[in-house]
């Protein structure tokens, strides 16, 4: 079975803090993705990566950065957290051309 894990299920941070969300997949997938999910807006793509050290902006990259130093790990970084970044963050991975598989999600609250 494909397994995508995320470092935290719930996080509470303060405005201005630097926040790291980590995602690990154990299936040697080339592609990894970060989405945020908000009620009424569905899932929106923040960034994705199709290889180690390669990244591309998604639909809403502002206020976020990413890092992929190893194939299995894809980190989402909030350089200076703001309250409008309170959301559910979902990581996904897939081999090229195949179905995306999702992690359990991290619910982030920024106070």
């Amino acid at each position, binding site marked *: 079975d494909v397994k*995508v894990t995320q470092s935290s*299920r719930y996080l509470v941070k303060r405005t201005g803090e630097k926040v790291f969300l980590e995602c690990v997949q154990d299936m040697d997938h080339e*592609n990894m*993705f970060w*989405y945020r999910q908000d009620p*009424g*807006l*569905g*899932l*929106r*793509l923040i960034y*994705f990566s*199709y290889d180690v050290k390669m990244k*591309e902006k*998604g639909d809403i990259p502002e206020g976020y950065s990413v890092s992929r130093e190893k194939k299995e790990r894809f980190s989402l970084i909030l350089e200076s957290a703001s309250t409008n970044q309170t959301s559910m963050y*979902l990581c*996904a991975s*897939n081999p*090229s*051309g195949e*179905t*995306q*598989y*999702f*992690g*359990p*999600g991290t*619910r982030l609250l920024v106070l």
Partner: protein
Amino acid sequence: AQSVAQPEDQVNVAEGNPLTVKCTYSVSGNPYLFWYVQYPNRGLQFLLKYITGDNLVKGSYGFEAEFNKSQTSFHLKKPSALVSDSALYFCAVRPRESWGGGNKLTFGTGTQLKVEL
């Protein structure tokens, strides 16, 4: 640009009755289409996908979806709903290119399914 519409925020159905969750899409060329389900405080679980071939696709938990090219729709169906089917359902579309940006999924806004006794 590709887009997905799920016109119903919520669908209510009685247990044992058939259910339909609607999805329409807009994309250039022939798409790949997906349905995912999300239970409370969980990630998305893959249900089924349409790639090519038979327009009726069967998936997990007794769900199926019908691809209709002329109506650009991909409605999710189940002949007999269960209370345990209550969840948030997402439709998604992807272009046929399979590398790099072609792997990007575009999601609908989701439909909350509520199955009652």
